[in-house]
């Protein structure tokens, strides 16, 4: 996501500038085999190659999405066209298609709840420790970085094998079998992504100067944290939250193997009986992800513009 905002000199401009330079009839003994026409040819060829590559990749990425869309409005067996699947989703009852939608709403509710709890938990765990280690102990900050990105190295399926006994104990003796407790596992899964989003924000502001300035003006630590650092970090906190939501909404492995229902498990189960409704719901979830990302991009843009002013 940080990729979008990368500052880079425009290659298009630089290409024209340099070909202009090659046009000048200076004696260039080192490049006799590279007259301006050949360079222009090369650039034209590059442009064709570029368009072909991008078109093929875009087609590969877009065809399944379009097929999903068509699949939801065309009955696969009878070949009839209709918007019954979408009606079922927006009216909330799948009676017209003979499908029981209750599991889907149950899963959706749980996934939304999990999003909230997981995001709160991961931010509450990460933000304070990242700030304090960044300000006071760079060595500890490296340990925090290593630990937070560790879940990338441990596949979710492996984590489930180890989490199984823990959750068995948790649900029998401490808490309940309520799927909301999956938030403990999800916090770990989300941590590397949220860590990266937060780290980008913390590196882009001069936290040490801010902290020293406010401390020498008499701010206490809580005041420094709430009134100085958080307002400067809210954009990266927002992006950490969004990526967390995206991960939680798409999670299947842990929930299904621990025997809990979330959105993805519900989608899979519904897909066994009515593939049209579940495909439509999957498409909606994907659109939701795209919207989240576009909003994030717009937020980042507006902040960058305000800073430049």
């Amino acid at each position: 996501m940080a990729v979008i905002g990368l500052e880079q000199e425009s290659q298009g401009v630089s290409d024209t500038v340099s070909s202009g330079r090659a046009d000048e009839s200076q004696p260039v003994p080192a490049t006799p085999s590279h007259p301006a026409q050949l360079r222009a040819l090369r650039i034209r060829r590059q442009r064709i190659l570029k368009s072909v590559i991008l078109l093929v990749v875009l087609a590969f990425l877009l065809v399944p999405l379009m097929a999903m869309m068509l699949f939801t409005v065309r009955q696969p067996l009878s070949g009839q066209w209709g918007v019954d699947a979408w009606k079922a989703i927006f009216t909330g009852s799948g009676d017209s298609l003979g499908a029981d939608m209750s599991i889907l709403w149950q899963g959706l509710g749980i996934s939304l709840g999990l999003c909230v709890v997981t995001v709160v938990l991961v931010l509450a765990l990460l933000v304070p420790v990242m700030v304090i280690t960044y300000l006071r102990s760079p060595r500890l900050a490296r340990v925090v970085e290593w630990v937070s990105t560790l879940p990338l190295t441990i596949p979710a399926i492996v984590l489930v094998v180890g989490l199984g006994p823990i959750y068995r104990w948790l649900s029998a003796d401490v808490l309940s079998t309520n799927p909301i407790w999956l938030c403990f596992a999800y916090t770990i899964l989300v941590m590397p992504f949220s860590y990266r989003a937060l780290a980008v924000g913390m590196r882009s502001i001069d936290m040490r100067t801010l902290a020293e300035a406010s401390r020498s003006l008499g701010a206490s630590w809580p005041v420094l944290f709430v009134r100085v650092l958080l307002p400067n970090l809210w954009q990266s906190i927002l992006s950490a939250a969004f990526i967390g939501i995206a991960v939680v909404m798409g999670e299947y492995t842990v929930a299904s193997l621990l025997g809990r229902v979330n959105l993805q498990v519900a989608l899979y189960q519904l897909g066994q009986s009515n593939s049209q409704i579940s495909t439509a719901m999957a498409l909606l979830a994907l659109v939701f992800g795209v919207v989240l990302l576009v909003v994030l991009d717009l937020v980042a843009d507006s902040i960058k513009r305000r800073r430049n002013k």
Partner: protein
Amino acid sequence: MTSITVASGRPGEQGLRSAASRLSRRRNLGTAAVSLPFFAYVAAFLILPTGIVVVGAFLSPTQAFTLDNFKRLTEANTLASFGTSIAVSLISALIGACVGGLAAYALVLGAKPEGLIRRIIVALSSVLAQFGGVMLAFAFIATIGINGIVTMMLQQFLHFTVNPNWLSSLSGLITVYCYFQIPLMIITFLPAVDSIRPQWREACESLGANTWQYWIRIACPILLPRFISALLLLFANSFSAYATAAALFSQRSIIVPLMIQGAIRNEMDPGQQGFAQVLAFAMIVVVAVVMMLSHLLEKRFARWQ
């Protein structure tokens, strides 16, 4: 604050120093107090489960030390599923890295950094790189499954019948994996391609180098470490992917994550617990080796920045 008042109240350098050391001790205590919840949480939900897997791999059903679990790793079908897993991951990583790398290069080539096409593809890629599991399986079933749209179109217009079981074959699985590998490659490799300055090529040409020399001497040495480390990331990514395969294959355990699933669900046989743990342990080892290689490469790349 406290250090100044204490120090001024007590003359002499010794008082100052002891106050300073007291302050630094307090600071360290404060840091520890704030860090404690984070480390405690990670210990409980990341280190402990991993520990259970690693220790469990060496335990028999009666909790005694044993290496029997590892014997099952060398059974023919376990080895076969590891081979399949590694082959699927390697091929999908190679395809993803090459296609994604080319696409990243095409995005940078002669385009403005804020150009529309680039923004669309980058935004799409960051969503699709996370798009796995059940929804991805649905997308491909809707595309090229038995009643898929592309299947129908091929049949109607070209009279070509797609094998209805193609999606649950290895080449089908690889194609499905490529759907998230290519976008992931685009977003991880784009910064590396961006770091190549067009001026370098111009400098090269004005010094008399041709395209071939530019690629061999300039671009490849800079891009190669990042390319390989991205390739390793893609490998680890598809090696640990479970949900997509689980949604596509309902019965057969042809790759390791599905074998683990089978072992977890099979609660009748107490030996299966150890088997799941030893499989998971082997997966950790494979991914750890891959990640270590990638880390070494990143270090080498850091020299160029």
